[in-house]
């Protein structure tokens, strides 16, 4: 009985009907015919309610079957598809309203999917979730409100209580770019082909000459031995070390499209590590803010990418001021071989760069340093409109000044032999891959 009352809901129709009957009664005060008609209507309404209840509650067995199909993990910053399977076992078609209790992080209070199901019909619906923070997400009940053709009452069915799903750094992007990187189709995503300069060639093997091979690579000694034309074959240099160094400090807290720069950087770091591993390089990760949070030494073992993914998933930060001095000493001690250091950080003004510049300069003596920082796309909101008042002109000029300073930072870094990538957060992954491929092709390390 308790569950009956708990699962019983009334739809709007009953109140509309009641309102009409009340109006009839009030008119019935003047014209008694309406009073009688109202009484009849009330009787009809009452019997409809009883019929409706009997129809929907005729069996204690759940006549509706439903299931939420969750992936093992969600990908941060991407659209994740969630499936809902639902089957109608009633002997008539039903109208369902699905309210899924999605995790609090989405702050969505108006979730509603409406679907009509025929007799015995089963469907799989889906909806899209785009998480913007890593961490554990918890789903609540899957509520399904069922009404029949009368539509006066609704019965609630509850399924799939409490499911927990972790949100990982974007593995969807990782897989997307991985396939593209292997199949060399990256140009589809705006990734540039870099002309290969031959000085980074590493000898791979000697093979027989096939028409079309560059005859400048003919290996005469081998040809003499085998009395058949042999050529040297070269390949890209392998086993170079790529470190993604992520600043988890104050400046990385700024959100764009709901996601913080830190999470953009984490996603990009995962993608670039994966591509590096696919290209037979060694990938590693260092995260730091006030202190060093974690270090994954560069390696190319099979489980390296899952190791990196786990470490990146767990990164927690208080957004303290980043300590580049500590980063410098750590890198100096821990990374002994020349490596590509992709430093994800952010500078809003020229002054903040000046404080850290000496560390970058020192780092670039032993390593190839690429500083990756962000264009503030919010500033465009101020600069793209025409200024109407003097204050507008000031706002615009100051916004331009901040944009201009980022250009100055790029120049200053270049002057000091440090490479840099200045990108919008949304384009971070693509720009980073570009830089990596460029660095590899030019053989600077």
């Amino acid at each position, binding site marked *: 009985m308790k569950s009956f009352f708990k699962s019983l809901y009334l739809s709007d129709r009953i*109140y509309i009907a009641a309102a009409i009957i009340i109006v009839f009664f009030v008119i019935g005060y003047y014209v008694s015919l309406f009073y009688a008609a109202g009484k009849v209507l009330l009787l009809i309404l009452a019997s409809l309610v009883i019929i409706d209840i009997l129809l929907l509650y005729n069996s204690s067995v759940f006549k509706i079957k439903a299931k939420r199909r969750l992936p093992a993990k969600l990908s941060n910053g991407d659209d994740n598809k969630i499936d809902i399977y639902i089957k109608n076992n009633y002997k008539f078609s039903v109208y369902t309203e699905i309210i899924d209790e999605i995790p609090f992080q989405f702050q969505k209070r108006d979730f509603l999917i409406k679907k009509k199901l025929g007799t015995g019909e089963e469907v799989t619906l889906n909806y899209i979730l785009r998480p913007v923070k890593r961490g554990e997400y918890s789903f609540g009940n899957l509520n399904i409100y069922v009404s029949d053709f009368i539509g006066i009452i609704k019965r*609630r069915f509850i399924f799939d209580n409490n499911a927990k799903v972790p949100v990982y750094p974007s593995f969807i992007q990782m897989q997307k770019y991985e396939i593209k990187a292997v199949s060399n189709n990256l140009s589809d995503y705006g990734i540039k082909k870099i002309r290969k300069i031959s000085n980074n060639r590493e000898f791979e093997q000697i093979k027989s000459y096939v028409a079309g091979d560059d005859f400048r690579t003919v290996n005469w000694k081998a040809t003499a031995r085998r009395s058949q034309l042999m050529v040297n074959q070269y390949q890209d240099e392998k086993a170079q070390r790529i470190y993604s160094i992520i600043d988890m400090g104050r400046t990385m807290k700024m959100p764009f499209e709901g996601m913080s720069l830190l999470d953009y950087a984490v996603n990009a770091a995962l993608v670039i590590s994966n591509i590096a591993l696919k290209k037979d390089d060694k990938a590693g990760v260092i995260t730091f803010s006030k202190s060093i949070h974690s270090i994954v030494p560069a390696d190319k073992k099979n489980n390296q990418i899952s190791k990196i993914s786990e470490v990146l998933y767990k990164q927690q930060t208080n957004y303290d001021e980043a300590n580049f001095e500590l980063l410098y000493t750590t890198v100096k001690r821990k990374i002994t071989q020349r490596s590509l250091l992709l430093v994800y950080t952010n500078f809003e003004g020229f002054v903040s760069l000046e404080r850290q510049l000496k560390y970058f300069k020192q780092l670039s003596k032993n390593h190839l340093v690429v500083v990756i920082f962000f264009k503030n796309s919010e500033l465009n909101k101020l600069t793209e409109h025409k200024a109407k008042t*003097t204050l507008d002109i000031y706002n*615009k000029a100051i916004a331009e000044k901040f944009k201009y300073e980022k250009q100055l930072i790029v120049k200053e870094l270049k002057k000091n032999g440090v490479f840099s990538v200045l990108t919008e957060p949304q384009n971070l992954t693509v720009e980073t891959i570009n830089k990596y491929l460029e660095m590899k092709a030019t053989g600077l390390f």
Partner: protein
Amino acid sequence: MNKKDIKYYIFIVLILTVTIIVEIYKPKPVNWDFTLEQKDKIPYGTYVIFNTLDEVFPGKKTEVNKKTIWEFFKKKDKTLRNVIFISESFDVDKTETAVLLNLAKEGNNIFISAHSFGKSLSDTLRFSTKYSSLYDTVSFLNFYNKNLKRTSPYKYKKFAGLKFFDKTNNSDVELLAFNKDKNPVFFRQKYGDGFFYISCVPEIFTNYAVVTEKNYDFAYKMLSYLPVRETVWDEYYKPFRKINKNSLSYLLSQDSLKDAYFLLILFTLLFAFFTAKRKQRIIPVIKPYKNKTIEFVKTISSLYYKSKNHKDIARKIIIFLNSFIKNKYNVNIIDNESIDIEKLSEQTGINSELLKKLFFYLSKINKLENISENQLAEINRTAEKIYEQAK
């Protein structure tokens, strides 16, 4: 019930209990409403006088009338009665006055005590009331009749500014009581076979006057002018009838309206129980981080704006424009004397007039100490146009 919520329920119950206890035990404020109703035991009710009418009219029936007089007397036989009206403003219309006059003509006695009277009644009986010219907190009343008169007048402390009748020289009228200025406050007037007893001091009949002031016999003496007969006590022409609390009672007396009313309540309850209940779990508010870039820029720019250094801003605009053109076309426009405007215009697609304007400003701006707001706006407009055309 959720275990977590139980403390809230306890809290609510506790507060309710405390409120109820406080409500029960707190001293009740005295109700000073001037109701003059027979069931009211408040100071200005007439509970005492009504319940002692038996002593004034021993052995006679007392009826309470809750309808208009014409409704009440429509169905009555012709027995002669006393009809007592104690009210604040006795606003009877023409029809009601006619009924009253008719009653008096037949030999009934009409006893009216009120502050003001319906115009048709006072016109017919030719009397009018006035306020005592002197507002005094103490009133003295006394009778003309030697047998009833007291040597020390009846003293009322609470009723200031009582009214009096300023009617004179009417042969039908017998004055019965007067106030301290010797103005009449109670008179009787013969009409047909009956009498009108009219006074303008209804306060005399209140519980307060009868019980507290120890002048109770004044009221009884006034009533004793009436013969011992069946008595009708009016409860209709009372000050508080107009805001009748029981308009709902009429609604409930009509079947269709009653049904509509109960249906409304029923569906309100149904709504509360079956539709307003929770459809999904509570989602706590999590505030997302805000990107405050725009606020930050606006704060900085307002600092610049306070110093009103337009020249500085103009130079900034030009520097950014220069860096834009330099990046795009590799031409430096600042401090470049040998620049060929026509060539630059061809190269960039920017109107040469516009470029000439720009260079005019460039040459001018350095010579000036500061520039005006209008000049700044002009420079900005030029820059905006150049950005537009260069795209």
